[in-house]
Structure formats: C-alpha cells, structure tokens
C-alpha cells in the first residue's frame, strides 16, 4: 500500500506544480523585442558561447563522489542488521572501511580533494 501512496503523492505534487506553471505561462502579460530576449551579461552584448570547458576540479570531485556514494549504499544494509551480525560482521565492515579510508587517503594525497 505504501508504494501506491508514494505514487499518489507524486501525482498530487506534480498536479500542483503543473497548475502553477500553466497559470504563470498564460496569465501574465507578454511583450518581447530582440534586445530584451538576449542573455544577460552585465548589460553588454553576450561574448562567446556559454557551454564550454570549466575547471577540471569539478570533475575530480564528481568522480570521487561517485565511488564513495556507491560504497555508502553498501553500508546501509549492514547498519540495518548490525546488532544480529555481531562481531564477525563488524570486523568485515572494518575491512570495508579500511578500503574506503585508503581510497579517501589516496585521493587526499594525490591532491584531488584540494581546490585550486
């Protein structure tokens, strides 16, 4: 029953948002001219294209994030059964954390976590 409730919640929410979007795209006045619909850039004509390369640091963080996020998801099931898994489970997760920590340490030493 709970999955259906979530879908219902999604539908009601999308309905509310959709109504507001529709309303705001039909009700307000409209007027346009070539200068007005230019992209904003300090009031002077736009220079060059927008979608070009940006700092490589963002990619590095994104890659490190991807690795860690997947590993975090692996820890959740263990956390749920932690009390029944006992010492054996804990030792195993410590090995897992050791690998995780080694990864973080490696990224740290390589300077991937340093913003410049």
């Amino acid at each position: 029953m709970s999955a259906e409730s979530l879908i219902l919640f999604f539908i009601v929410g999308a309905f509310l948002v959709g109504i507001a979007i529709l309303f705001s795209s039909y009700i307000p006045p409209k007027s346009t001219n070539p200068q007005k619909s230019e992209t904003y850039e300090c009031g002077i004509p736009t220079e060059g294209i927008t979608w070009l390369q940006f700092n490589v640091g963002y990619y590095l963080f994104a890659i490190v994030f991807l690795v860690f996020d997947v590993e975090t998801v692996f820890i959740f099931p263990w956390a749920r059964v932690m009390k029944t898994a006992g010492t054996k489970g804990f030792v195993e997760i410590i090995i897992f954390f050791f690998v995780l920590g080694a990864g973080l340490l490696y990224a740290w030493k390589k300077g991937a976590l340093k913003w410049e």
Partner: protein
Amino acid sequence: MTIFIIYKVFLCSVILILSLLVAMYSTLIERKVAAFLQDRIGPDRAGPFGLLQPLADGIKLFFKEEFMPNTADKFLYILGPSLTMLIALLTSAVIPWSIPVIIGGKIYPLQVADINIGILYIFAIVSMGVYGIMIGGWASNNKYALLGAVRASSQMISYELAMGLSIISLAMMTGSLSLKDIVEQQQGFHWNIFYQPLAFLIFLVCAFAETNRSPFDLPECETELVGGYHTEYSSMKLGFYLFAEYVNMFVSGAIMATLFFGGYHFPFVDKLGLSNNTLAVVGFFILFTKITFFGFLFMWIRWTLPRFRFDQLMRLGWKALIPLAILNILITGIVILVR
C-alpha cells in the same frame, strides 16, 4: 477501500498545501527575523504586522511577465524549476506527522507512506534535487547561471556523502530505516540527539549545505555570480526556485526533528492520560514547534555568519565531515558491540 483512497488523496493534498503555506510564511518570518537581528522593524505595511506580505509577494510573482532568453533550451528551461519544486515537496511523504487518528473504529495514519526504507527514500529524493538546479542553470545559456549550477552540484554531492554517512550510525543504533520506527523508539526522553550528538552536528551542517542556505549559499552568491543558477529566471519560475529553498528548509527541519529530537513525542505528554485523537493533535503541534525552532536556527545562522569561500567549503566537506562521520560509525559500532 474507496474511503481509504479518498483519505489518502486528502492527506496528500493537505501535506503538500501545508508545506507550501509554511514556505510562503517562512519568507515573511525570514524577513522579520532579519529585521529583529539587525534592530529594524521589517515588513509591516501589508495587513497587521505585515501578515499579508507573502500573499502580496505571491500574487506579484504570478502576474509578472514571464521571460525566456531566446538562446535558452525551452523545454529544460521550464523543467528545471518545476523539478526543483516537485522534489522539494516529495521528501515530506515519509515523515510521520503524528500518531494515527482513530475515527469510527478505523485507523487513519498521519503519514503518507510508512515504507521500511524511509531514510533511503529521503536520500534518493534529496540527491535528485541537484538535477533541478543543474538543468535550470544549464538551460538558461548564461555564464553566471552555468557557474552557479556547477558550483551547486559540486557542493551538494560533496555534502550528500557526509550526510549519508552520518545517518548510518543512527541506523546502526535503531536497527531500522523506517522513520515511524525511529520515532517510536524515541518515546519518553530517549531522543537520539543524546546518543548521537556528533551525527546530529554533521547532519545539521550538511542540511545547511543541501538547502543552499547561508553560510553555504555559494550557488547564488550575489557578489560574484549575480543571481547564480536563477539569473535568467523571472515570474513564478523564479518563485519556484525561491520557494523550493523554503520548502527544503521546512522538510529538513522536520527530518531533523524526526530523526534526532523525538518527532511528535515529548516527555510526559503521553502520560497525561489524553484520548488518542487529542494526543495526535498535541503530537502534531509538538512536531511543529520543533520544526519552527529549526526554521529559526536556519535564519539565525543566515543573518549571523558570513559566506564560506569555495575551497573552504570543499575542505570542510571532504577533509573534516567525511572522516568524522566514518569515525562516528566505528565508535558507535564498538560501543554497541561491547555493551
């Protein structure tokens, strides 16, 4: 069965509209709190104490002209703010607002969906929030917007990690990922904050970063990026981005109250001998008081602390919060096993 479906639709609408209303009035409260902290009066023209100000703002946003740059990607430009708003609203589906109400022998739970992976659901939805900002910032075809969006996504994914790790220690202690179970375990005065203060602190800092609130409001840093990811937006689409921030604030306040501060429980209230339905109403107001406190905390910090620099932000997230969260998990594990 039909009654139940009607009840569910009713509950969904009430919760969604309540979140929107609270978000609306948070804008007024924010301005009042700012005025209070800076020794001003704040908005007081529209209605008594400025109570109609949010309505006036909302009407203004609705009737302002819709603007779209001609170089923008039309579909994504509209999708961005809608997605942000929708995702901000969806998180509240798993929050238990109070104990179930009993009317005519039937039980009506005041929670949209009691799923056994509530915490994972919250993380799944919260991490989708970055799409709304990234899509909107990219589709505007504006350099400031793109920079703001890239910053926002970088910041949000960094803090999401520490957030997830900090909650793991809580899941270890409670042995459940359902928010309902976690609240029920905190009955009396066994609030999780007393057992997991470090996890709460990490979660609080990450909540600030995830909602893009000051001191982590770099994505919309006016002094560098004009308006950040919503530079090109106007009318209700801009309103969606601004409202979504307040909805996020409200929902993260509710999550923190639920996970760490006993949700709708308060010591001795359940021993007063009130009837079930009265208790449900009282519980709802208790939860709301806690959320209000967190809302005030969000605003208080916004008007007190200056903004971080981007390298400081990254250093705090990766080199302080994540190691601390891992350490917290290990300590919690050892304490649970030794006991």
